[in-house]
Structure formats: C-alpha cells, structure tokens
C-alpha cells in the first residue's frame, strides 16, 4: 500500500516537472526570433533536398524536377517574359503628366533596389511592398493607381526585379515591436489552414514541396518570391505577387482578400525575410 502511494506520488511529481518544462519552453518559443526562424526554415529545405544548392531554390519547381528544368533552361534562352520586361522598362522611364518619373520616388532611381522590399515603414507602422510603393508613387504624382493583379504592375515590377537580378534578398526587420508583429502575422498567415480545401500555404509549399499536385510540381516555400513577377503558362501572361496570393486563396476555395491588404503585405514580408541571402531571379517563367 505504501509502495503504491510512493509510486503515484513520484509519477505525479514527474508529471508536474514535465508540465513546468513544457510550459517554460513554450514561453521561450513565444518570443519571436526571426533570425532563428530563417535559419530553421533554410535548414529544413536544404536537409529535405540535399541535392539542391541553396541559391537554386529560387527556381521553384525547376529545382525539384530534372525534366522540367531542361525545358525551362531551353525556354530561358528566349524567355516568355521578354515583352513584359521591355514594356516595363519603357513605362519606368516615361515621365508622369507632371514631368516627374518613378526614379524620383525610389532610392538609387529605382534601379537595383528590389531586394530591399518589402520594408517596414516605422512612420506608418506598416509593411510597404514594392507594388504598394509603385502605386503610391503614381498617386503622389497625380496618376491613377494600377490594378495590383494586371499587366501594368507586372511589367513595372518585372523591370525593377530585372535590375536586381543576382542580388540577394536583404529584407530588414527593425527593432520595433510593430515590425516583429507584422512578421509574426505573416508567419501565422502562412501556416493557417483556410478555404474549404483546408490548405495552408505550408500544406503545399512545405509539406508538398517537390511533389505533384495534379500536373504541377509544387515549389518549395524557400525562395518562392525571388523570381516574381512571373510569366505563367497557365495564365498565358505575367502575374504579380498580389495576383499569385489572390489565386492561391481561390484555389483552396477561400475568398481572397483585397490585394495589398495587411495580411498579404505581412505574408510577403515574412516569406521574403526567410529567403534573405537567396538571389533575386525575377522576372521568372513558370508552368
């Protein structure tokens, strides 16, 4: 009788100790550490795909499948995004009605800066993406904003991405609680299941990376924005990051949010930060 009591007391004590330990590690994990997240994220993918070089993850499905890669390399000799790229270059250098140009809105005249976006605007307290910055530039100069999901925005961002080709993503999270919150919001969005099909971004791009979904090979989440905007054969045209976020939502049977809504901006912030160090490869081509 005494032995049994002793045993139950011991097991109770053990359980309590375990609970305390779990509780402590849970609180430790709750403090956001983006640098640690990024390392864990990149390690996850390099371990899952040991044959893929770190910089190669930016090529999405082509880093996952040899046959697709060969077709893509051939197409890159004469890429389908050439028209959008040329149109973007022309648009970028055409002055607004008031005589100013896009160069006046951006550091370094807007050339070779794509890798710095999105950034956290401490004055506004929100994430600013490249697409958002471009439309704000237009509006500040008396021009109507472009649709975030149509060709004009795609052409402009294609050109700006092209001027940054090869430069590693360099997204910064300033020492500001709101910036960390935006980063955490993006993280939460990425892992949250949504839509009737109950998929999260992670369902396809983390768990399903490299696997087939119908006829498509799923791209890994690491480096997934590096090649944006992309010419998608499926769209028979160019698409911006906004367009992709909207269509991804619809594909899981979730009603998409407004382009450049807070959740999307935070998501872009989170995904871009995790891909810091990986080269900009835009504009890209995808199936």
């Amino acid at each position: 009788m005494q032995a049994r009591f002793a045993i139950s007391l011991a097991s109770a004590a053990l359980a309590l100790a375990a609970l305390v330990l779990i509780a402590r590690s849970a609180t430790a994990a709750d403090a956001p550490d983006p640098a640690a997240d990024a390392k864990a994220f990149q390690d996850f993918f390099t371990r899952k795909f040991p044959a893929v070089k770190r910089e190669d993850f930016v090529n999405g499905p082509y880093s996952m499948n040899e046959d697709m890669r060969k077709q893509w390399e051939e197409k890159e000799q004469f890429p389908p995004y050439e028209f959008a790229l040329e149109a973007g270059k022309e648009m970028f250098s055409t002055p607004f009605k008031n005589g100013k140009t896009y160069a006046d809105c951006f550091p370094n005249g807007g050339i070779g800066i794509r890798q710095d976006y999105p950034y956290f605007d401490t004055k506004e307290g929100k994430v600013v993406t490249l697409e958002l910055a471009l439309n704000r530039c237009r509006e500040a100069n008396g021009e109507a904003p472009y649709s975030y999901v149509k060709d004009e925005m795609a052409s402009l961002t294609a050109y700006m991405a092209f001027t940054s080709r090869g430069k590693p993503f360099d997204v910064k999270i300033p020492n500001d609680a709101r910036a960390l919150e935006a980063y955490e919001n993006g993280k939460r969005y990425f892992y949250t299941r949504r839509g009737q099909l109950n998929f999260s971004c992670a369902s396809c791009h983390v768990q399903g990376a490299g696997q087939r979904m119908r006829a498509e090979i799923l791209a890994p989440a690491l480096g997934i924005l590096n090649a944006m905007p992309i010419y998608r054969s499926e769209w028979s045209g160019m698409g911006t990051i906004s367009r992709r976020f909207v269509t991804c939502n619809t594909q899981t049977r979730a009603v998409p949010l407004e382009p450049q809504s807070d959740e999307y901006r935070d998501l872009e912030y989170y995904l871009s930060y995790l891909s810091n160090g990986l080269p900009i490869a835009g504009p890209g081509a995808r199936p």
Partner: protein
Amino acid sequence: MASTIRVRAISSGETTEVQALIQHPMDSGFVKDAKGELIPAHFIQQLTFEHNGKTVFLADWGPAVAKDPYVKFGFKGASKGDELKVSWVDNKGASDSTTAKIQ
C-alpha cells in the same frame, strides 16, 4: 510601334537554329469575357520565315495556338550574316514582319 516579333537565329556548322517569340493575343473565339460575351477570334493564320527569297518555314495556324506563340526550328543552307525575314498575317488581315541577321 515596337515590332511584335522577336527573333534570334544562330548558325552553327551546317544548321541554323531559329527561335521566335511573337506577341499576339491568339484569341480562339471560344472564350467568354467577364460580361459573358464571346471574345471574337483573333489569331495568326500564316507565319513565314524566308531566307534568300526562299521560304524555309511556313506555318498555317489556327485557334489552337496559344497567346504569344513561341517557335523554334532549324534549317540548312544559310551562313552567318545572312538575312532572315519573318512575317505573319492574322485572320483580321493585320500583319507584321521583321528581318534579322543570322549570328
């Protein structure tokens, strides 16, 4: 207005490899717009590549070819510096052509 045809022709040995990217909506005539109305058919019907006045590649296209078509083919009998003429005509009677030097 900028040409709708982007072409690159590279000669290596006997063969000249040609790649062309043509900007054209290639509407099949079967697709409906947001209002539910059919977008009228608008596609390239004939695409011609000529070298030294001779047709080396002729394509009779229809609505099955997708937007902004890409073509790749090889042919013999040309040399570096020769000219290659590319031209197309669509079902609305519009056309465009360009000439490129074989590299």
